[in-house]
């Protein structure tokens, strides 16, 4: 495969990942423009090389190592185009420790019903007494995060860079009797916070009024 075509293939793959919205699932928003620009630059360079290429009378013999390397590289680009990322957020979260950046002031200023799940987790971690949020209205969405020895949490993933550094933030939910949801299902929950004893500790738990199955949001990762 000529170098120009390989460069164009990778450029198209990167540009496609940017244009199709896949990056929303993989990277933090601040990097999207950078990735799109890189894809465009690679595609444009490949096209330029293709048009500027001098016609060759004789075919050059390919170095074996380079031929296999280029073939492997092209196959990988095609695989990325063909196989979209479909991570299991629950599986990913189970493999990561919980830990969020310092609570931004905004989370405390927002009325409770406007807080996202991540903001709720930040608020709860920054104050020791869960009674301060007892009875607050809750309107959140997230995926179901399976727990090994406890009921599942409703969670979100936060990223600073890409999925490699995704960190989960989860809230306990008082699920209806015998209706535990499937891991990875996306749910929107309206209800209120209640302080309940969980494993001998007073904990703020989301008590749902309504639970609605929703499709995965276009931008499922939070900063």
């Amino acid at each position: 495969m000529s170098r120009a075509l390989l460069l164009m293939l990778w450029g198209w793959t990167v540009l496609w990942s940017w244009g199709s919205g896949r990056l929303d699932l993989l990277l933090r928003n601040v990097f999207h423009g950078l990735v799109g620009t890189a894809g465009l630059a690679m595609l444009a360079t490949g096209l330029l090389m293709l048009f500027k290429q001098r016609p060759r009378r004789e075919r050059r013999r390919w170095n074996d190592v380079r031929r296999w390397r280029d073939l492997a590289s092209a196959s990988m680009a095609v695989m990325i185009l063909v196989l979209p990322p479909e991570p299991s957020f629950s599986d990913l979260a189970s493999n990561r420790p919980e830990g969020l950046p310092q609570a931004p002031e905004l989370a405390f200023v927002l009325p409770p019903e406007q807080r996202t799940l991540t903001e709720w987790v930040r608020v709860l971690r920054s104050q020791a007494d869960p009674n301060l949020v007892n009875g607050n209205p809750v309107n959140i969405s997230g995926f179901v995060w399976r727990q090994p020895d406890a009921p599942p949490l409703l969670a979100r993933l936060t990223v600073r860079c890409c999925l490699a550094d995704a960190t989960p933030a989860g809230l306990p939910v008082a699920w209806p009797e015998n209706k535990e949801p499937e891991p990875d299902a996306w749910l929107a929950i309206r209800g209120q916070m209640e302080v309940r004893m969980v494993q001998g500790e007073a904990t703020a738990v989301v008590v749902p009024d309504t639970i609605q199955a929703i499709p995965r949001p276009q931008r499922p990762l939070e900063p």
Partner: protein
Amino acid sequence: MTSRSRPRHLIPALNRFATAWAIYQGLLLEAIPFLLLGVLIAGLARWLVPQNTWIRRLPRQALLAPITGALMGFALPACECGNVPVARRMLASGAPLGTAFGFLFAAPVLNPIVMASTWAAFPDQPWLLIARPLGAFLIAVMLSLTLTLLPERQLLEQALLSERRMNQPLSRYSLLERSGGLVGGEGSQTSLLEGTAVATDRPTPRQMLKQSSREFLELMALLVLGSLLSAVVQTWLPRSWLLAVGGAPTTSILALMLLAVVVSVCSSVDAFLALGFAAQVTPGALLAFLLLGPVVDLKLVGLFSVLMRPRAIAITTATASLGVLLIGQWINLWRL
């Protein structure tokens, strides 16, 4: 394929593969712009500044050379992926080994973007803002001094060695030595050099495009491999195991060093990642994570193969790990 459409007994295994595939794509797509930037800087440097000029006049003295290289990071702010092509261009152009290695190992930390992100992530820990650049500088000097003990033919990758010798004065290497490493030595000029005469004058835009695209595609193939390796390891190695030993001084440092090698995120954002577990680990372990990742990680191992021979890569890994462990221990003695 979503988890709902997968057969139930296959779900855990397929979920794992699907997650590894997504992490791999995330790592790769995030690194590509930085790699492209590095190749662009290397190409521009070659075009704007003809070889045989300033680059070979950089200091060669054992200690001064890595210091100069490390300080060059301030002028070329790129993360570790972008630094590889720049360091390769420096070495190929005949820069002193110490300067090029000083740049390669220190610049991923000693640059304005990384220092600003460390400050943004840890504004309440001023010791870290001093210890990180200082530690990176010490590690770079240590690596540079260790690697330059090896003869060039045991240190540098074959194609790079040939290109470097072509750019050295005739008084240093004869024509026979230039053509293929040592006379009678293994290999010939292949890989990044293939099909291109090494010019000592300013290359034409066409030559520059040809060489830069070849360089980018070769590094890209290695980046693909490194990202894949990193994604697989981090999917099957529970991170909570590594952080479970966070409280013990020595094991916490070792665990966080392993984490830095596996996670392979860019140095410009690793401080934000470290912020997530900073409270669970010792200060020495935190610093070890921030120091080792920019020098050695799974994503970089492939990229290093265009610079160094496998033995030199192994020496780099061992020396950097030892240096980081010692610095981490000392920080724990001071801060705990």
